[in-house]
């Protein structure tokens, strides 16, 4: 199910999401099979320590069916005011990440995401 290939593909997806949103980086947290929210990956080191790094961040919930499975965080290294269109685009990109995760997990159902600024 998950070999080095899947990690590589997810890294590509995260980098692609960061590029498409025009921000400095993207980070992914997911619930594990014990319902713990865990850091999965980030496009650079700042993504792992967002609170300490002083980044501006936009986090969107990742929703599969009706269940929140994690969050996608887009961030900038400098202070940034997130516009409504950026929040909406972040939500859509979150949907893309859910589809990619479902494909990696072996197929699942619907997803949706809505933006939240923090």
């Amino acid at each position, binding site marked *: *199910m998950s070999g080095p290939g899947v990690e590589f593909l997810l890294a590509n997806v995260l980098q692609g999401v960061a590029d498409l949103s025009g921000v400095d980086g993207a980070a992914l947290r997911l619930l594990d099979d014990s319902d713990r929210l865990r850091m999965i*990956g980030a496009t650079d080191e700042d993504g792992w320590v967002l609170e300490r790094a002083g980044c501006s961040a936009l986090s969107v919930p990742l929703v599969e069916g009706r269940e929140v499975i994690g969050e996608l965080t887009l961030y900038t290294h400098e202070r940034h005011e997130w516009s409504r269109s950026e929040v909406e685009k972040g939500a859509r990109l979150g949907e893309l990440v859910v589809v*990619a995760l479902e494909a*990696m997990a072996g197929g699942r159902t619907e997803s949706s995401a809505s933006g939240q600024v923090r």
Partner: protein
Amino acid sequence: MTHIDPEALVASLRRMQKAAPATGIVYHLERIVQVVDRIFGYSGAGLMFADPDRTLRYLFATDEAGRSLEHAQATVQAGPCVAAYTTDDAVTTYDVRKDDRWPDLAALLHPDVRAVAGVPVRLGGEPVGTLNVYQDTTHDWEESDTEALHAYAHVIEQVIAAAVEAEEKSQLADQLQYALDYRVVIERAIGYLMGKHDLTASQAFTGLRKQARDSRRRVADLAAELLGEQGRGDPDHAI
């Protein structure tokens, strides 16, 4: 440099595998194209995929006009998306209805299809299909437009590759072949609905897709049911 925690990823994917039934690669691709369509805000988007004999075929479009664009190109095997596939590069047109490169297309297109852009979708470095968008007005495509399309195509490539990782390649190929083959049944069901309920093709297409989605069935199975045929194919394969 992107870093992924493999142990955490495995634990999360394991959690995702517990709940709902498997859907399939075509379902994933459709959803991605719908998301891409909403992000871009163009008139429509679609995906064409190549047969094993490298003939480009209609796989999915977000609306009736987009469907006509893909259907027309599959019929004459020419057009911006076919060119994007064969040249393995982005191809755009200001107005496909008046483009001298594809004189046979205009007669087959929905009147709303004007400006078109297509980029290749690759697997293992080789083109396997195209991501297409269209506008209902003429449009000068800029390099930033095609760059963004390439970027989304790249995400699609990761999803296809992930599906390959997750499933047997032969099963994946079967799902795609099923989707390509059963478009005929879907087309007939749309015609049936148009006649029975006095709908436009667009209304029939949208209604069929919605009903299938709401009942979590494959569009092809619902289409076959409407036509009085038995649902065909393996229920694990989704459109």
